[in-house]
């Protein structure tokens, strides 16, 4: 009897040891701190619990920039993680470095997963794809800039959420001002008033098919009349007390909206989660980003922001298989719906969106749907995304010049001339790094 017990224990132990030996371990470096990080950890735990062949370990690596740079340094040293989270502005760096990553599409197909790019909602399909439409990075925390508004404030002013900027400046803003509100603030000028200005109005953002065809000779097309007119209008709104700018910090522009001082705020579809948790003293809702009727009468979908996951190259086939399994797990409707509910980021597949709809998520929180709807608007020639190297610095240049416009230190004309010149300088430098 005793002997029997011991053998079963030994057998059980051997089995367990075997199982833990067999599990292929992979790592995932990300930039999601705080409560988002808890959700990331939950996803990893759920994946590990869902099967016994693979084990993923998420590692918080600081900000987006720190995570990317740590990933690059690790790659050079041969210590790269299996999965690296890369934010929108860093995409060109990673996708440009062919051989640094295994395209997600190849990874999934090679490991026997079903892959159809049309399963993904239309706005997220090609943002991290190459010029042939092959998906390189897996969209992960995806968001898009949308317009939040204070329902009571708009009622008090007797207006509805503006569809166009013309409506905003002639009807909405003056009424809101009379009702005692600052009409508008926004949280990210390069993202909302530049990149997505281009996609919403279907304007080319860079030569070479928005940069998708390669870094060589890519030039930014930011110095155009449509956007300059927009910024001139913004400065007029600022003078009239319709618009206020609180700096480059995200939260500084969001807070006045939460305090009820600003009636309309342009933020991220992902901000929905945080707004809902704060218990605001008023009802808020959201709708699409306005457009200029003078520029287009057929507004298009917007770009995604946030970040994507890349499978780093140089890993064993077993580990790549594990990574593929993890990506498959991530794109499952249940996982996506969980992520969408927990964080406010949009679900990236049609199936997950259907699931959320069927579950009544949008009946309970209509504003949560805005981001997906906007990303599913008709696509245009210039709406799949943009690909520019050193884009982090280009955004810094934009932020700097926009800040100077809004503090009256420079003119719109000079600012855009500067942005164009410096950005093209950076792009030319980047092209030289790609030889």
């Amino acid at each position, binding site marked *: 009897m005793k002997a029997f017990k011991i053998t079963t224990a030994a057998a059980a132990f051997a089995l367990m040891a075997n199982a833990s030996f067999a599990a292929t371990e992979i790592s995932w470096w990300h930039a999601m701190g705080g409560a*988002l990080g808890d959700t990331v950890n939950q996803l990893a735990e759920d994946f590990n619990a869902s099967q016994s062949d693979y084990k993923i370990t998420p590692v918080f690596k600081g900000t987006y920039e720190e995570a990317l740079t740590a990933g690059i340094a690790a790659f050079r040293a041969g210590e790269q993680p299996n999965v690296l989270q890369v934010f929108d502005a860093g995409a060109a760096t990673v996708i440009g470095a062919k051989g640094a990553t295994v395209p997600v599409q190849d990874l999934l197909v090679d490991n026997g997963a079903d892959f159809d790019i049309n399963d993904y909602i239309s706005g997220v399909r090609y943002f991290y794809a190459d010029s042939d439409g092959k998906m390189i990075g897996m969209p992960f925390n995806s968001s898009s800039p949308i317009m939040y508004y204070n329902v009571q404030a708009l009622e008090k002013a007797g207006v509805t959420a503006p569809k166009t900027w013309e409506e905003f400046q002639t009807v909405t803003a003056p009424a809101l001002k009379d009702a005692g509100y600052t009409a508008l603030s926004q949280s990210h000028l390069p993202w909302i008033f530049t990149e997505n200005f281009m996609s919403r109005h279907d304007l080319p953002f860079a030569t070479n098919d928005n940069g998708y065809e390669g870094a060589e000779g890519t030039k930014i097309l930011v110095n155009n009349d449509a956007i300059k007119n927009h910024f001139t209008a913004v400065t007029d709104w600022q003078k009239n007390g319709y618009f206020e700018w609180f700096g480059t910090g995200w939260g500084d522009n969001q807070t006045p909206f939460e305090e009820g001082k600003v009636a309309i705020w342009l933020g991220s579809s992902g901000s929905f989660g945080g707004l809902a948790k704060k218990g605001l003293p008023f009802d808020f809702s959201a709708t699409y980003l306005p457009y200029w009727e003078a520029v287009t009468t057929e507004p298009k979908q917007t770009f995604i922001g946030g970040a994507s996951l890349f499978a780093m190259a140089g890993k064993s086939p077993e580990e790549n298989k594990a990574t593929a399994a993890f990506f498959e797990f991530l794109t499952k409707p249940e996982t996506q719906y969980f992520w969408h509910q927990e964080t406010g980021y949009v679900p990236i597949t049609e199936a997950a969106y259907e699931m959320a709809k069927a579950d009544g998520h949008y009946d309970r929180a209509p504003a949560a749907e805005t981001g997906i709807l906007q990303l599913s608007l008709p696509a245009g020639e210039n709406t799949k995304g943009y690909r520019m190297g050193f884009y982090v610095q280009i955004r810094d240049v934009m932020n700097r010049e926009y800040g100077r416009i809004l503090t009256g230190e420079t003119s719109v004309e000079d600012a855009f001339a500067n942005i164009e010149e410096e950005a093209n300088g950076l792009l030319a430098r980047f092209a030289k790094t790609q030889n």
Partner: protein
Amino acid sequence: MTDISQDPHATPARRIKWGRVLDHAILIVGSLFMLIPLLVVLQTTTTTDIETIKNGPELLIGTQFDDNFMKAMFKASGFSGENTGTSMLINSMILGLGFALGKIVIGMMAAYALVYFRLRFATFAFWLIFTTLLLPLEVRILPSYEIAQKLSLLNTYTGLIVPLIASATATFFFRQYFRSVPEELVEAARIDGAGPVKFFIDILVPLSQTMIAAMFIIMFVFGWNQYLWPTMVTTEEGMYTLVRGIKQLTQDLEGTNIPEYGRANMLALIAILPPVAVVIFFQSWFVKGLTESDK
């Protein structure tokens, strides 16, 4: 001393008192300037995160202190469950102590060699060392990471500490200090037949007490407060340090969530304590050392 200071101003006793009052007033204002921000942080650890975000610091003491304290010290903020406040505290301690001791020992040895020995390549070694003054790790961090990896120092305490030691600040200050030590001491030691090792350990090190204490304070705090390098070289949560943990808690993207201010601020306050203890301890030590050596 008291009677002398009273004497020259014997008649207008009030004027002296006004001087004292002014002294105290300046000190109180100074203390407030230093302390109020810390009190503000302390206040935010007693309220909920939402309240802090909405209203900022207020003149009331909330009820969340214990809760935040427990979370800060014992709740893991990562995946493996290994990076609790306690484990991060230990790692920071190892980093701070290792950095300070390493820097002092290496710096003293090098300074001793430079000041007290006739070396053919002394000038060369001198410039080789002092060129490294001031240039911080942040601006050479990427190649340093590659080297740390080549030496397989990632996720080790050695990897955390040694690359940070690669600058000559301590050597520089010890060199200055040794040069101010009276030359007669060496002569006397030589007459007594003391060799260089004996002179170093028995005479120079005890004499440098104050300098060592001063260096220890500066270096310990410097090491303790590192952020970027620890973030680069560690990927195992069991190796995380406090300053990194604090940043992890406050990071928020696109307003998707409410940052855990209460817990982060609590962690920040906890992070202050050990270095303050070091400062208090070594301060009295080197004040004493200084005053004694001058008498």
